């Protein structure tokens, strides 16, 4: 190795800074372009695969269904049948059994987790007014800790009959779903957390609480509009 050079103050330092700036900005721009090209190149396929995964997830959160139908929420609060292409709209997925009876509705929700935004899907059964299933669509939670929300059996058991019963006028959820500490669950609307995944499991409880408080009254009031076979007979 050659001896370290001493940089004399003045123009040389300026040159040095300029070189650093040029190198960093230059490489930054090239890197940004590379990322943009990859993103554009893979976007279509990723969206397609995600839609497929979502379809499968609907079957996981609504037990006993054989068909699904997609509905979107219009700005005036009505649910209408949708092709599900426009992902910016609020979409819900109705599940039916062989006799075309509505078995439940899968709702997508998201919120801040520990590492990043958590995207989940949960199944709502209007007949029993409970949440019957839960599935994590997207999560970057810490492996071994936060990602227990996907695997912990005790935690997942929370979502077998989680109460979201509505008030008499069907306008509000009587008891909003709330997260509680592990071992302190007393009521059917509480989500018992996981020790070692406190923030992630609390986040799930809160995401479902917020989402269900607004969307479930709307769904329940219009549950008749879901009561027909989906327009796409192949599904």
């Amino acid at each position: 190795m050659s001896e370290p050079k001493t940089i004399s103050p003045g123009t040389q330092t300026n040159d040095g800074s300029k070189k650093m700036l040029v190198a960093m900005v230059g490489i930054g721009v090239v890197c940004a372009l590379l990322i943009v090209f990859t993103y554009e190149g893979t976007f279509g396929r990723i969206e397609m695969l995600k839609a497929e995964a979502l379809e499968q997830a609907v079957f996981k959160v609504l037990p006993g269904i054989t068909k699904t139908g997609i509905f979107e929420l219009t700005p005036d609060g009505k649910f209408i049948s949708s092709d599900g292409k426009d992902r910016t709209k609020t979409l819900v997925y109705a599940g039916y059994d062989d006799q075309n009876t509505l078995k439940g509705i899968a709702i997508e929700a998201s919120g801040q987790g520990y590492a990043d935004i958590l995207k989940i899907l949960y199944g709502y059964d209007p007949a029993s007014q409970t949440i019957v299933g839960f599935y994590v669509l997207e999560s970057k939670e810490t492996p071994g800790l936060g990602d227990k929300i996907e695997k912990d059996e005790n935690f997942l058991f929370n979502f077998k009959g989680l109460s979201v019963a509505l008030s008499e006028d069907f306008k509000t959820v009587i008891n909003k779903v709330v997260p509680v500490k592990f071992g302190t669950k007393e009521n059917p609307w509480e989500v018992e957390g996981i020790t070692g995944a406190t923030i992630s499991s609390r986040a799930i409880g809160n995401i479902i609480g917020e989402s269900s408080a607004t969307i479930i009254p709307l769904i329940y009031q219009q549950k008749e509009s879901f009561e027909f076979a989906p327009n796409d007979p192949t599904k």
Partner: protein
Amino acid sequence: MSTELKNIALKDAPSSTDEFIKGLWRENPVFVQVIGMCPTLAVSNSAKNALAMGLATAFVLVMSNVLISSLRNFIPKQVRIATYILIIATFVTMVDYSIQAISVDLHKNLGAFISLIVVNCIILSRAEAFASKNTVGKSAIDGLGMGFGFVFALFCLGSVREILGNGSLFGFMIFPESFQEWIVMILPAGGFFTLAFWLLIFNHYKLKKAKS
């Protein structure tokens, strides 16, 4: 580099095969250098996950080695680490999107570990110790060697863990129904057991070679 140093470097320059074997075997990143333990232990619970993680890391390693080596005279010393991270992070992002486009399930299994390739010390150490001082060709071979050394090591761990812990390899059952799976092998503890077992074999072999 001064001309004198260059001459010495040329005289002692190892052949390409040597450079490749170095990473794959003699200086294997996992079994000899024992670096990059976090992904090694965490994602080696099945042969498929191990292979995917290994290949993703190998790709990033080769690409970043090539780019860093070709820019080695352009990157000022003071900002080299920041620049390396920038370059590595770019390739990791590209890999991340590509894996998502291949399979959502695989992406879900590898999860946060894909993004964590950015801080994988194997890649940064090769950039700093090798690519920043050697030609593009050599750096590419070094990256390939180290990359495949990592794939090999992960596969060694992943296959043993999947065979014993799940009775299968790449999802195909290889034991009869009556086989009692060693669940511990696919749990984190199994990763440590398997790593220790492979390190034992490697060191035994190394000692034997040194004696003879």
